[in-house]
């Protein structure tokens, strides 16, 4: 009876209001007890996504709905999912009545999940951001390992050595995915990853993006290993990639986005979703920048996510390859901090050093100018660009809007 009342209180949102501390603590403990009574659907999927992209979840939901499956999913990552799980449960039977339950989580919310009921747990990346989040990948690995169950099936991006480490440590089944080994130009050595087993530098046979690639440790048997799902060929210019003998559309300029599509593909295959549906969902994924023409100048607007090192890096790598003038800036370094600029120092800005015209916009971006100059990027304050041509612009969403208004 008390568990049903607890669920009703969650459904009515009563825990959201301010409660007396003793009352709050009582219901908080009761909520944790009630959570143990909850019965989950057979298909309980969890996706680790510290960067809050939701790409993989959104694609999966789309695919499942096309198969006419009932899906319950969280739209927002919370540190504690107890409220969401209890709200989703039937008040009398405690069953989450759905064909599929899909949750996107961060390392904190792992504690609210009972992994013995999770069918698949997908990890595309372990957080490498440095803003208000622990920078130590090993901390995230420990959190994951301490929460998962040996029965949990892991689906892992094993091009990332830290994610691959979970495959080595997990006692249950794991499926790995990644890109086929290919020769690429060597990237900056500063961004190599270390072996998670012995902490020495890994030897890379090929590298795709920062520390992602095919690698082996010179001291022990830790290496990339065999991938169940492997992208065989990528053509960024013609926007396609090849996987399991089939070509798939890649509506993005960024190599890194293939990992999201591959993660979705691996998970969907494991769930036996129809291949035609998988293909259609992949073709609908789009991560192109917008373009706006003002006074005969085309502005390619790239949305920046401050604090997200990998997202910035993929855009910097792409923009650095063009010869176009480039405008970068932000009005706030982070939403949650005035001072944390450490994430800027995990991005390699050297690809921009080849560009002739790099402009800084917004006063607060002076610390960005400091950072760029440390990577020998010649930059200066924004000057109006006149004449015909094309310009790349990288700013957070709201700043892009302000910038466009200034241009008009």
């Amino acid at each position, binding site marked *: 009876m008390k568990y049903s009342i607890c669920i009703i209180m969650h459904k009515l949102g009563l825990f959201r209001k301010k409660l007396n501390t003793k009352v709050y603590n009582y219901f908080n403990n009761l909520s944790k007890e009630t959570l143990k009574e909850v019965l989950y659907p057979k298909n309980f999927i969890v996706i680790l996504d510290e960067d809050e992209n939701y790409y993989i979840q959104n694609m999966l939901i789309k695919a499942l709905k096309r198969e006419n499956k009932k899906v319950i999913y969280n739209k927002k990552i919370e540190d504690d999912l107890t409220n969401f799980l209890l709200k989703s449960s039937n008040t009398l039977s405690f069953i989450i009545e759905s064909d599929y339950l899909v949750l996107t989580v961060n390392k904190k919310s792992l504690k609210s999940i009972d992994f013995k009921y999770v069918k698949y747990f997908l990890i595309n990346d372990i957080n490498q951001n*440095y803003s*208000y989040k*622990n*920078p*130590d990948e*090993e*901390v995230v690995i420990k959190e994951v390992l301490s929460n998962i169950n040996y029965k949990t099936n892991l689906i892992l991006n094993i091009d990332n050595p830290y994610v691959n480490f979970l495959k080595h440590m997990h006692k249950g089944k794991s499926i790995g995915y990644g890109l086929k080994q290919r020769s690429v130009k060597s990237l900056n050595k500063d961004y190599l990853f270390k072996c998670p087993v012995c*902490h020495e530098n890994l030897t890379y046979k090929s590298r795709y993006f920062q520390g992602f690639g095919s690698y082996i440790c010179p001291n022990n048997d830790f290496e990339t290993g065999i991938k169940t799902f492997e992208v065989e060929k990528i053509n960024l210019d013609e926007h396609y990639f090849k996987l399991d003998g089939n070509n798939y559309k890649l509506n993005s300029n960024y190599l890194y986005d293939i990992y999201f599509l591959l993660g979705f593909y691996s998970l969907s295959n494991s769930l036996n979703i129809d291949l035609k549906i998988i293909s259609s969902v992949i073709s609908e994924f789009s991560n192109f920048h917008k373009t706006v023409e003002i006074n005969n100048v085309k502005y390619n607007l790239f949305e920046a996510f401050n604090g997200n090192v990998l997202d910035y890096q993929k855009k910097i790598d792409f923009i650095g390859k063009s010869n176009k003038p480039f405008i970068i800036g932000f009005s706030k370094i982070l939403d949650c*901090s*005035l*001072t*944390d*600029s*450490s994430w*800027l*120092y*995990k991005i390699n800005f050297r690809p921009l050093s080849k560009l002739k015209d790099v402009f800084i916009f917004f*006063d*607060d971006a*002076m*610390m960005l*100018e*400091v950072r760029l*100059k*440390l990577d020998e990027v010649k930059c200066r304050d924004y000057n109006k660009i006149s004449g015909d041509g094309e310009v790349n612009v990288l700013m957070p969403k709201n700043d892009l809007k302000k910038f466009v208004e200034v241009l008009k």
Partner: protein
Amino acid sequence: MKVRIIYLYSDLCHEFGEEYNIKMLVKYIKLSGADVQVKYHTSKEIIDFSKYDLFYLPSSKKYSQNLVLNDLSRYKRDIKKAINDGKFFIVLGNSMELFGRKIRTKKGLSIPCLDIFTYQTREEKNEIVSDAFYDFNPLLEHKKIIAFKNKNTNIVHNEKNRMFLLSDSYNEKNFFAMELVGPILVRNPYFTLYIIERLFNNLGLEFSFKEKNVVEIDAYNAFVLKYITNKNLD
């Protein structure tokens, strides 16, 4: 005469962008009128403390911190002598913990450290993550240190030799330590200049800093003007 800097355990200690502090030091030493050489020490190399004027040790990951501590332990006497001789140490982030008496983990274990100074470190259950704006009196009118805290420890038994109001900093002779990150020297050019001027005096060098359109100083001043108000000071 060259200023000789050693970046200790550069292969293990490079968190929070603190490896860029060395670039700042080099730039500002040159702008102040001297030559400089930097040794990027790695964990497998021996350290000759007599060869350097300034020792730089920034933050590391947890497992690297243990490796650094084990290696540094064999140099305890050399470190004490170097500090007493007035050599410069800039120690940042969690590396500050190594120079105290011990680290007490949240499980109650006691990890002996270098015991150069009497402060101790206590691991906390929760992470401590916040902006930090500290007064640093020797900087006079440019007093504020702009920094960031991202740690799960607290420094305790540190009453006398704090650089700032709170206990997460230590200064004795030319040993400067703070459990903060920034990158500190990049974000705080006046603090960097303060260290360099002291270093030059110590080495008998003439300090003359050519301050014209130095972007770090402009960025610092713009930030202080905009954001540092009474309500967000520690």
